């Protein structure tokens, strides 16, 4: 999957961290660190995290298009 967080919006509520602790973490009080390319198998967890975010800062998509990167080279 592909994940991006709008960190202008993120207010470090950490709801995503509770929902998907293997993919989102806070380093320090507010510095959100996240997995930009989690495994497709973890989709349910990632989607739960995106839904849990009170400021809707998380965008995630399955990465059907990843193969294109190679093709585009």
């Amino acid at each position: 999957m592909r994940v991006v967080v709008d960190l202008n919006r993120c207010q470090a509520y950490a709801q995503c961290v509770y929902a998907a602790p293997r993919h989102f973490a806070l380093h320090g009080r507010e510095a959100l660190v996240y997995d930009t390319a989690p495994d497709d198998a973890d989709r349910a967890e990632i989607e739960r995290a995106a839904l849990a975010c009170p400021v809707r800062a998380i965008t995630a998509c399955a990465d059907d298009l990843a193969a294109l990167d190679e093709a585009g080279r």
Partner: protein
Amino acid sequence: MSEAPGRVVIVGASLAGLSAAKALRTEGFSGSLVLAGDEPHLPYDRPPLSKQALRGLTSADTTLPQPADLDLEFRLGVPATGLDRAERTVILADGSRLAFDRCLVATGARARPWPNSAEAALDGVFTLRTRDDAERIAARLRDRPGRVVLVGGGFISFEVASVCREMDIPVTVLVRDSLPLAGAVGAPLGSFVAEVARGAGVDLRLDAAIARMQGDARGRLAGLVLEDGDRIETACLVVAIGAERNTAWLDGAGLATDRNGLRCDRFCRALGADGTPADGIFAAGDVAHWPNPHDGGALVAVEHWGNAVAQARTAARNMLAGDAAALVPHDHLPDFWSQQFGLTIKLVGLAAGSDAFAVVRGSMEERRFLAVFGKAGRTVASASVDSARWLPAYRAAILEGAPFPPLPGGVDAPARVAMQSLEEPTR
């Protein structure tokens, strides 16, 4: 420009380009949509490159999420070399021509190269803008270089220095000015960051400039000599001295380009050299130079993530607008974040030109505070350090043009506001 466009060509396949493509589809555009970019990669995110990705904390693959139904045609790995306005065609380096009804210029910026090209070519001298740059630097950091030197006093410099310290790699930051970041966030925050960096073990040299770099017989960086005569031994140096806008490919197109980028109006329409909107051509993101309504229409060129997304969306809507009455202005209030030394620093508004500064919540000692910037008695910007939840209230105050300091007497009025006038207004 009243006919509905059938073909849209976006040049620059990165944050602004992809955001525009998504917005075009959301707005109902069903014609052909080409995204042309000179990098070989699908659009990816840059902010993690100087932060988590460099440290190997998470994947270095920061490809941006892309809905599967966007129906985009990618032309990757080939730069655009020209734009023929009369023919409404974008010309690519491989000779192919992409006809368009609307074209979005989203070619962003590139890292400003080190001015001495022989030194810049030394093995061990890097810049950081692309995913490939980040991979090269990350590989070097994994090899545990003796000391990393950062050249430049901007956010990228301090973010990379922070990563190095977390990896316990000795690091020197060379800043030409007497304070880092002062141009972007003002002197008080600049000196706060300087103190935080020093506390984390960064060898921060202010008013410092490189006289020359030294290479070994095999062309590898071995060290450098500062103008004050000091020598620093290093095999890894990152040049982070700002960005240059990618407009050279537009030379000859008769558009209003200069070192600030491609001029556009508040509707994101690119301007021709004569100052009038060029038919069918729009701009968004780091490449754009636009009048900001929150600063009396003064021209700004913002190199931030949030602006690239917002401007791309506005440009997309306007590309589909049937007539002038349907155009929407780009009235985004600039904002950005940075993460360094475990702190999150955020800024909303335009601190440039501000003449007053006050910490209104928390304190610099606690390393957790919210500060506001004033200009001629109005609140023009607000910065938070690990206090992001307070920012939206101040964003509202800035949008209203509230007096400085804002929100007097409100629930969040501070007991005492230590006002500071800025001797040297921020640039």
